C-alpha cells in the first residue's frame, strides 16, 4: 500500500534546477533509501516533502491526501516527522524536555483545559511524560535525561533528534544522513535502531551517504542525480548498475 506518493516534483532556485520531474512512491512499512552524489537534490526533496520549500511543479500525496504546499506544522500534524541533517534540538533544554515537547500534537484536551490544569489535562500530560521516558529508554538515552541537549556528544544528539521525532508518533519518518560521520560500531547500533523503528510500524525514508549502511538497511533505493531520478529498485540492482557508478564517478561506491 502506498503511503507517500511524489508526482513530477520540480523545484528551481534562480537558475539552478534542484529537482526536475521527480516521481516515486513510498510503500507503508518499508525503508526506502534516497541516494545520489552531492547536489543531487536529496535535501531539497526532503524540504519539499516536509513543507519548508514549496515545489514549483508537481504534487505530493500522503495517505491519498494532497499535502503539496501545506505549512510545515500542518504536514507534521498529518504524521510526517523529519530529522534535520545538522542535529536541530532545543539546545538549552534537558534531554527529557526535548522529547516531552515532541508530544505537542497528541494532546486531545483543548488548550483551555491545559491552561486551567484540569485533572483530565494533567492526566494526559502524565501519560506523555511516561511515554517520553519510554522513548528515551528505547533510544538508549535514559541515563542522560537531565543533561542539557547542547552538552551531549554528537552521536547522542542524533539519537535525541530521532527520539523527538518518534514522540510525534509519525507514520513516515524522514531521516537526513543519520549515520554519516559515525564509526562502524555506532553505525551498526543506529541501523539496528532504525530497523526497530520500522518494526514499530513507522515507514522510513532515508537519505544517506554511507553506502554500506544504505545497502544493508533499505528495502528499496531511489537514486537521484542532478535533480532527476536516475533509477529505482532493490539494493542488489542498484549496487551493480553502471549508471549509478558513473553518477558517482571518481567516488568510491562500496
Amino acid at each position: 500500500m502506498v503511503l507517500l506518493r511524489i508526482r513530477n516534483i520540480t523545484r528551481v532556485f534562480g537558475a539552478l534546477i534542484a529537482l526536475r520531474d521527480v516521481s516515486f512512491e513510498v510503500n507503508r512499512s518499508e525503508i526506502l533509501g534516497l541516494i545520489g552524489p552531492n547536489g543531487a537534490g536529496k535535501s531539497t526533496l526532503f524540504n519539499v516533502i516536509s513543507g519548508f520549500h514549496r515545489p514549483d511543479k508537481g504534487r505530493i500525496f500522503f495517505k491519498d491526501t494532497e499535502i503539496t504546499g501545506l505549512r510545515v506544522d500542518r504536514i507534521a500534524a498529518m504524521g510526517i516527522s523529519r530529522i534535520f541533517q545538522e542535529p536541530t534540538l532545543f539546545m538549552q533544554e534537558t534531554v527529557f524536555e526535548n522529547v516531552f515537547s515532541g508530544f505537542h500534537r497528541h494532546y486531545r484536551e483543548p488548550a483551555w483545559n491545559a491552561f486551567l490544569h484540569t485533572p483530565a489535562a494533567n492526566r494526559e500530560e502524565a501519560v506523555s511524560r511516561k511515554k517520553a521516558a519510554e522513548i528515551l529508554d528505547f533510544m538508549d538515552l535514559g541515563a542522560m535525561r537531565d543533561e542539557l541537549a547542547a552538552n551531549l556528544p554528537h552521536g547522542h544528539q542524533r539519537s535525541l533528534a530521532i527520539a523527538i521525532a518518534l514522540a510525534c508518533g509519525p507514520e513516515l519518518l524522514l531521516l537526513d544522513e543519520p549515520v554519516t560521520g559515525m564509526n562502524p560500531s555506532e553505525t551498526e547500533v543506529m541501523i539496528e535502531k532504525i530497523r526497530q523503528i520500522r518494526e514499530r510500524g513507522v515507514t522510513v525514508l532515508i537519505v544517506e551517504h554511507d553506502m554500506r549502511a544504505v545497502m544493508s538497511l533499505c528495502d528499496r533505493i531511489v537514486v537521484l542525480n542532478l535533480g532527476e531520478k536516475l533509477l529505482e529498485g532493490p539494493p542488489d540492482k542498484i549496487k551493480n548498475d553502471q549508471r549509478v557508478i558513473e553518477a558517482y564517478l571518481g567516488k568510491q561506491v562500496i
Partner: protein
Amino acid sequence: MKLPDSLALVKAHRYKWIAIAIVLIALTALPLLIENNYIKHLLIMACVGTILGMTFSMLFSAGLITLGAAAFYAVGAYSSTILVMNAGLSFWAAIPLTLIITAVLALGFGAVFVRNAGVAFVIITLIFVQVVVLAVAQVEFLGGWGGIIGIPRPDPIGKVNFATKTDYYYLILAMLLLTIVVFNALYSSRIGRAWRAIKLSPNLAGTLGINPYRYRLLAFVVGSTTASLAGCFYAHYSQSITPGAFGGWLSIYVQLYAVLGGLEFYILGPAIGALVMTFVPEYLRIVKEWEPIITGVLLLIVILFFPGGILGTIRSPQALNMSNLQSLLKWLKVLLPHNKNG
C-alpha cells in the same frame, strides 16, 4: 526514578510553597509597616512596572522582542478613562470591558505584526507605540497633547474608598497576583512549552506540529491585554493621563526590568528588575538629568557582564562574565590614545 531524587524534589517543592507563603504575607503586611506615602507610591509603580515587564517576558518566551509594551498600556488607560468619564460606567465594569476591547485590538494588529518575526517585529512594535501616542494626541476628544485630568478614583467597595495609597497598593497587588497566576498557568502548560519550543528553534517546533504564528499571536494578545489591565489601574491611580507619559523611554524601561532581573525568569525577573530600577535611583539620590545616563550605563553593564541578569547571576555565579571585563579593559587600554576622536 531513583528514590533520593524524588525525595529531594518533594522537599524542594515544599520549600517553594513555604517561600511563596512568606513572600505573600510580607507583601500583604508591607503597607502596614511603611508610613511614608512616597515609598508606597514607589511600591505601587514597581508593581505596575512588574506587570509591564512580565508582558515583555511573555513575548520573549515565544521568541518575540517587543519595544511596544507601552502601546496597549496606553490603550488600556485611555479606554477605561473614556468608559468611566464619558460612558458613565463604574471602574469595576470598565475593567473587563477594557480587557475585551484591547484583546480584540491586539488580535487585529497582532495578526499583522506577528507575521514578521525577528527584526521587523521589533521595529513595528516600536513604531506602533509612536502611532498610538500620536493618534491619541491628535484626537480632541481624548484631550490632545494636554491629556485628560480629573479621572475619578475607583468606586468604593464597602469601606475601601481608595482615598489612601494603601488601598491602591492592595488593588495593584491583587492585579499583580492575578497576572502571576494566569501567566504561571500558561507557562507550565503545553502552551508555554510550545512558546519555548518556538523561541529555541522555530524550524524544529514546526516539524513537531506547532504553528508558530498562532502561538505567537496568542502571546501577543495575552501580553497586550495584561498591559492594558495595568493601564486601567494607572489612569485611575494617577487620575490624569497624557499621551507623552506612554511614549519616550517607557517601553525601554520596561524591557530593562526584564533584562536586569534575568531574562530567563519570566515572572520573578521583571519583579526584581522593576523593584531595583524604581528604588535604587531614589536612594542614590540621582539627579533627574543624570538618570537616563545612569540607566544606559547600567543597561550596558548588565548586558555585557551579567548575561543572566541579577537572578541568573545568583543562580550560577560562574556565568559572570569576567573574561569579557578583562578583554574590554585591554581594548580600552589600546584605544585610549585615540579616544578624543569619539
